């Protein structure tokens, strides 16, 4: 559980960076704002904060933190985690996430720079989130995959194919 929390905190750092990005409405290449919560993971290649995240970070082979199939009949409870306040060049940003059953089900900025058009920038269409390491551990619980056009030939090797198979 401790590991989950630390992983989640690293996720919050990433979200802070992404929110920082969105509060800068005109530049597409904002990179690296100060991060208060450093990822507590053992990732040798911590995310740079740039949106151009490549495939360089390793998943590290740590044991999975994804909870197994529900052993209990009751639905998992929602737990909220609030990250530390990160100083960005636009002001302080603090993010709270809600986790249910090991998945991030909600993310919200509880503190954000005054004077920015926060509502417009952090809208409800999408919450781009999640540290790559977290993603690797949770990929089994992703609902679908968006990527460069998959052809019928390439489908069987695709992650989407695996997801479809699980629900056919």
């Amino acid at each position, binding site marked *: 559980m401790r590991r989950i929390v630390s992983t989640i905190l690293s996720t919050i750092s990433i979200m802070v960076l992404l929110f920082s990005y969105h509060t800068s409405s005109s530049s597409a290449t904002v990179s690296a704002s100060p991060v208060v919560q450093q990822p507590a993971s053992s990732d040798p290649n911590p995310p740079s904060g740039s949106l151009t995240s*490549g495939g360089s970070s390793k998943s590290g082979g740590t044991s999975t933190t994804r909870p197994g199939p529900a052993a209990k009949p009751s639905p998992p409870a929602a737990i909220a985690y609030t990250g530390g306040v990160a100083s960005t060049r636009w002001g302080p940003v603090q993010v709270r996430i809600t986790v249910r059953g090991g998945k991030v089900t*909600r993310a919200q900025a509880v503190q954000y720079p005054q004077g920015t058009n926060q509502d417009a920038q952090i809208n409800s269409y999408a919450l781009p989130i999640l540290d790559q390491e977290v993603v690797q551990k949770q990929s089994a619980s992703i609902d679908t995959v968006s990527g460069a056009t998959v052809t019928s030939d390439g489908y069987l090797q695709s992650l989407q194919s695996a997801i479809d198979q*699980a629900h056919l």
Partner: protein
Amino acid sequence: MSRRAWVQQIMGMPISIHLRGKDVDSPMVAHVVEDAFVLLREADRLFSTYRDDSEVSRIRRGELDPGHADPLVQEVIALCRQAGELTKGAFTDQLPDDQGVLRFDPTGLVKGWAADRAANRLAELPGLAFCLNAGGDVVVGGTESETESETEVQVNGGSRPSKDGSGALWRVGIEDPRDRSRVAQVVQLHHGGVATSGTAARGAHLYDPNAQTFVDRAGSVSVIGPSLMWADVWATALFVGPKSLMLRFSEVADGYRVISL
């Protein structure tokens, strides 16, 4: 609450429909899902450049005057023109054929357009949330009435959609363009589209009309917003277009956002 998926190969690509909610196994649901696939096959019949008998193929050969084409084809032609204007020419429906001759080819817009049409049909299913994935471009919507009370309203702001503010959350993984077995980011949304353009799956197939060449660079551009068709148009335009197009995007594509990888 249960979940069920259907997959068909249409337009040369896998199209999957996932539904979540009650009664996903009912005959009514199967009927509506089939309707959605019918709409997609209809688009293939009209627009495929691989079918000699499609209206688009006949227009390409000069056998059919676009003014006499099916109303749906005329609708798409008008949308292509609009897309070209919005993207300052980075989107085009004039692509080189095998001989390098520019010919009418609305494929880059039709996929999203057809998926949005199918999605509108799926949205008529009461109490069900849907996720339609057309070869890597995704549109989601609907509402799981059963879990409405449990579903958190997303971060405030955004003029977004379902009037009661609820809907089912879908987690859309954005593929890492440098390692397609990995997911680089996750986008969560209740309604709208996620389109990704890049060269990872099919090589240099994206055409830059301004440079008159196919683009061969790494990376991908994903666009998220209310309409999959427009998200897809912008994803392609931003991938092939100049960096300055990002400014244009932020000015005219209200409600859309971009992830560059």
